[in-house]
């Protein structure tokens, strides 16, 4: 748990620390990606590592996503622990076949003879008018594929703790970083710590309704919760942190207490993570619900460029607040 005297660092610094610590700890950790060498990555994610790790371990690749993702997978089968940095999740689509057919299936197909201890890192989410090719979430597409672990942190502390756990995972992890975290300063404890995969975080305790929120929606939900508390409505806010495996137990326990559930997901509504979470709650805790589960999702449209339209397509703190009021009414 974090305390008031924790230092404040940015999301990017948290990622840098996680990489530095894990690369020091395990010489098998290498990073593949465009511009992640001497320049420190397009978001600064490998800044400061060059002097220590050099070109043997920070592999600056050409713009050949399919090839260097596949190489990372092969390297993981041959004993390394690659971190494959794809910059934006959109660019992972050019390597999607490698991820789905190779990384995800190698352990299964080989009957457990091989496995792929690797991390696919990519930035996600609507942020600062990047337009339709740089604003997607897309984790639902990968949640569908057995064999992949899908991690979506919502704070600098979790970026660090979860990235470290992901690097140590023996299964392939998609580590998806919401761009809104990169330059924001947040409390992160000094020193090494791990955040376990598959464990949700109860970010705020409440009694009147449960919110399960993903990525930037956690920040929005906490803002809405603060405002709702002024009206005497106490919501519990849960961040699953890893979508696969999903910590159903924490969610179900919360719903058993509050009897109302709102799930908030920036990803497009159809088949998104919120749909999966809602289904699991219906399967496990239907009898506890006093009201239908409500979902707030990214619109079923691509993320447009112009600021007013861009804001329109994702849930906002105001919409969350309004929805909770209706849910508890």
């Amino acid at each position, binding site marked *: 748990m974090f305390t008031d005297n924790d230092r404040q660092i940015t999301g990017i610094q948290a990622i840098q620390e996680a990489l530095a610590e894990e690369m020091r700890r395990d010489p098998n950790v290498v990073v593949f990606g*465009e511009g992640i060498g001497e320049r420190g990555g397009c978001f600064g994610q490998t800044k400061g590592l060059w002097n220590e790790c050099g070109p043997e371990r920070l592999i600056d690749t*050409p*713009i050949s996503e*399919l090839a260097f993702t596949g190489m990372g997978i092969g390297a993981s089968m041959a004993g390394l622990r690659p971190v494959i940095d794809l910059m934006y999740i959109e660019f992972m689509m050019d390597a999607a076949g490698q991820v789905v057919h190779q990384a995800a299936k190698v352990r299964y197909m080989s009957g457990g003879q091989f496995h792929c201890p690797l991390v696919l890192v990519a930035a996600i989410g609507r942020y600062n*008018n990047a*337009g339709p*090719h740089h604003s997607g979430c897309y984790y639902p597409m990968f949640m569908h594929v057995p064999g992949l672990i899908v991690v979506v942190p919502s704070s600098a502390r979790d970026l660090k703790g979860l990235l470290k756990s992901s690097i140590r995972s023996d299964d392939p992890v998609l580590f998806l970083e919401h761009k809104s975290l990169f330059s924001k300063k947040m409390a992160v404890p000094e020193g090494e710590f791990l955040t376990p995969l598959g464990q949700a975080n109860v970010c705020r305790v409440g009694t009147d309704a449960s919110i399960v929120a993903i990525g930037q929606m956690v920040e929005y939900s906490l803002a809405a919760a603060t405002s709702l508390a002024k009206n005497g409505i106490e919501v519990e806010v849960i961040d699953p942190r890893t979508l696969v495996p999903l910590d159903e137990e924490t969610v179900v326990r919360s719903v058993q207490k509050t009897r109302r559930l709102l799930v908030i997901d920036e990803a497009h509504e159809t088949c998104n993570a919120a749909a999966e979470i809602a289904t699991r709650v219906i399967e496990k805790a239907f009898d506890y619900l006093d009201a239908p589960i409500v979902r707030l999702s990214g619109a079923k449209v691509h993320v447009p*460029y*112009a600021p*007013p339209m861009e804001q329109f397509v994702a849930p906002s703190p105001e919409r969350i607040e309004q929805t909770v009021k209706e849910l508890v009414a």
Partner: protein
Amino acid sequence: MKRKKAQDKTRGERAEAGCEVDEDRALDFYRSMARVRKFEEAAAQYVREGSIPGFIHAYIGEEAVAVGVCGALEPGDYVTSTHRGHGHALSRGLSMKSVMAELWGKRDGTNLGRGGSMHIFDASRHFLGTNGIVAGGVPLAAGAAFAIRYKKTGQIAVSFVGDGGTNHGAFLETLNIAAAFDLPLVIVVENNLYATSTPYACVTKTQDIALRGTAVGMAAETVDGNDVEEVHATARKAVARARGGSRPSLLVCQTYRTVGHYEGEPVAGTYRTWEEVEAWKQKDPIINYKKRLIERYGATIAEQLDRIDEEAGQEVASAVEFSRNAPFCAPVEATEHVYG
């Protein structure tokens, strides 16, 4: 490579090589390049100021490529562009006001402000989009070329792509398929030596990109991409090959961006030296073309060129005013155009 720098070539040599154009054409080239330059200088300023949202990749220093190539095209030809595409869009005759308004995210933008700099489309100009995905447009151009040949409509397709894009599977796969299928396609590589911060030389064994075309059996040539006349003359040959005989070409244009990868990135000092940038600024395609035209036609043309600069500046200023005052789409309009 037996390629000469534009500056080294004498006028006689240029004429002999079939590069030199007549005076009207020369003025057109100059005007087109000046419009792109002034457009982007203004756009960059409004990005810094924050009135253009999002980010842009400026083409400053590379204008001769778009202008030289597009000068060889017919109105019906298809073009796919890149993330650095303002020059391609303007050179294809897209309205400057509409392109500027798209950058501002406004309703009057080429595509209603829903795309921005990296997603500029204009069906009326057969402009199949700037593109946020490196090499994303290359297969699309091949597809347009296929449709053209299938329907026997006689146009050609052109795809612009960066040096970095030539290492992407989409480029390499399309190169082969275009050659194998004899598509009426010209792939234009803008070799500005870097893909963001990564020097081409650091991630590619051979620096001769044209060899990739040769390897798949495609006509391939390398030109000085800062010499609009040389680009144009070579593009004309490639265009003729595509239009007349349905044979694809790879045209590699050696050039340089004298600005950062995106507006806001330091121009030099991180992965490029100031000396290198300064040396390329000496080869600026617009400044040098102006000098050359004055040498060629005498001082009288200088006045005309100055007037062109001034008019381009005015056109940009009015595009900015137009864009600033244009309305945004209503937020709910974000839901339109997902399906037909």
